[in-house]
């Protein structure tokens, strides 16, 4: 945690090089292009929430943000996976400047919501995958976990922007390490806010539907 405090303010040289390099790679492989459909690029504090099928998702999403926004936006990743070895932790924290959280936690110091709030309270933005894991099912989008609701309740001024990442499950499916070059787009939708009196479950389902509605080709079945 202290580590995060110290370095979350600006990118280190390593993080800048990594982020520029990965964005360039994302463009070469997928020709990624942002579609702003209901929101606009902005330096405002935001939580970008997206569908998740591949390790490449976060790279694609950040490639659609400006360099300035990218330097203040952190992907939330699972500590169970990215904290497993020193190398993974180095990649996740020191190179990609992601925020690691524990999906299963008992110790209050590991409470994911408090960790994410700490980042938000430094004025930074988050990239969140509310499905909680990479989706390998036939469903286009799994049910959301409650983090999105809890964060928005605690910090209602932070905009929640739905982002549909197209095709990435075909480019780099779970378990593969070489990407197939396919064209990808990231569709950014209108900000979602909790309606007065709306309960957790209703809000999460509505946020999920808003994200699903952004899919530019819902008819395709792969």
């Amino acid at each position, binding site marked *: 945690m202290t580590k995060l405090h110290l370095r979350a303010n600006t990118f280190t040289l390593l993080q800048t090089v990594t982020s520029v390099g990965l964005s360039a790679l994302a463009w070469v492989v997928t020709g990624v292009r942002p579609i702003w459909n209901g929101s606009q690029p902005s330096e405002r504090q935001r939580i970008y929430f997206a569908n998740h099928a591949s390790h490449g998702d976060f790279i694609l999403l950040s490639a659609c943000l400006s360099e300035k926004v990218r330097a203040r936006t952190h992907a939330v990743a699972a500590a169970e996976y990215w904290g497993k070895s020193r190398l993974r932790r180095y990649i996740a924290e020191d190179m990609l400047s992601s925020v690691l959280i524990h999906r299963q936690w008992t110790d209050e110091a590991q409470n994911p919501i408090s960790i994410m709030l700490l980042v938000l309270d430094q004025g930074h933005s988050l990239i969140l995958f509310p499905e909680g894991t990479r989706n390998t099912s036939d469903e286009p989008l799994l049910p959301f976990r409650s983090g999105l609701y809890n964060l928005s309740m605690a910090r209602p001024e932070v905009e929640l922007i739905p982002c549909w990442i197209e095709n990435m499950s*075909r480019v780099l*499916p779970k378990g593969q390490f070489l990407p*197939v070059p396919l064209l990808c787009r990231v569709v950014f939708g209108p900000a979602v806010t909790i309606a007065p009196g709306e309960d957790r479950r209703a809000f999460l389902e509505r946020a999920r539907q808003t994200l699903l509605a952004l899919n530019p080709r819902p008819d395709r079945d792969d």
Partner: protein
Amino acid sequence: MTLPPIHETMILVIGLVGVLTTASLVAGILSWRAPKPLSSTLVNLTQRINAWWVMVVAITVAFFFGRTGMTILFALISFAALREFVTLTHSRRSDHWVLLGMFGIIIPFQYWLVWTAWYGLFTIFIPVYCFLLMPAITALNGDTERFLERVSAQQWAVMISVYCVSHVPALLTLNVPGFEGRNLLLIAFLIITVQGSDVLQYIFGKLFGKHLLSPTVSPSKTWEGLVGGLAASSLLGALLSFLTPFSPLQAAAVALVACLMGFLGGLVASAIKRDQGVKDWGHLIEGHGGMMDRADSLVFAAPVFFHTVRYFWSV
């Protein structure tokens, strides 16, 4: 490979720059005088002309690097086209390695065959070996869901985007007596007549188009556009015969065949897009689709042009 005589190359470059400058000026004046905001037709016109500038610059740069430059340029075009094709068609998770092989093995190997002028393998590598081995790998993977559809899509993707496109730089490997060292001009002739034919068919269609040619496939293709466009591009071919080993009459005939194939390519591309429920192949070029939207006619014209020249003129 030596460069073609500077004289013809200069005429060619000056001619192209002249035509495009005129087009840009006309589009600029039209946009300046038109009511704002500009109509989508005008915006599209400007974008098309800009894409042409990019195309001419890219080909000119490749031109000066000879066979190596052309081979690399068209390998990249194949990459972009294949990426669009595969993105559009159905595939499953189990196809991952076959798809990787299409990009990582088939494209480099096919263009290496072009570069080394290995004609015997160049013509059969994809239609014999790839077409047999790709479905074999898919079968070995054990996933039979929509098997024939996936295999057909993969084969067509490679056929259209790699095999057909590779016939453009392959023109440099032909040995036409009395035309040594000038094969790059054949590429220029093919691209100018076929792309010119696209524009001419569009213009004739806009001016005189009445009878739709295939309303279920494309609402913009008319008989008047086709006939007028083909006649005009044959004339263009005859005018450009000084670039080629052909007499003016032969050049007109060769251009007619190439442009007719180009028309069929555009028609097939439209049918595929319609089947997949999209308007454009991709988003490579801002505002108007992808590589295949620009190259569909060239894709069908190139192999037939290649074999025409090879059969009648080369030794």
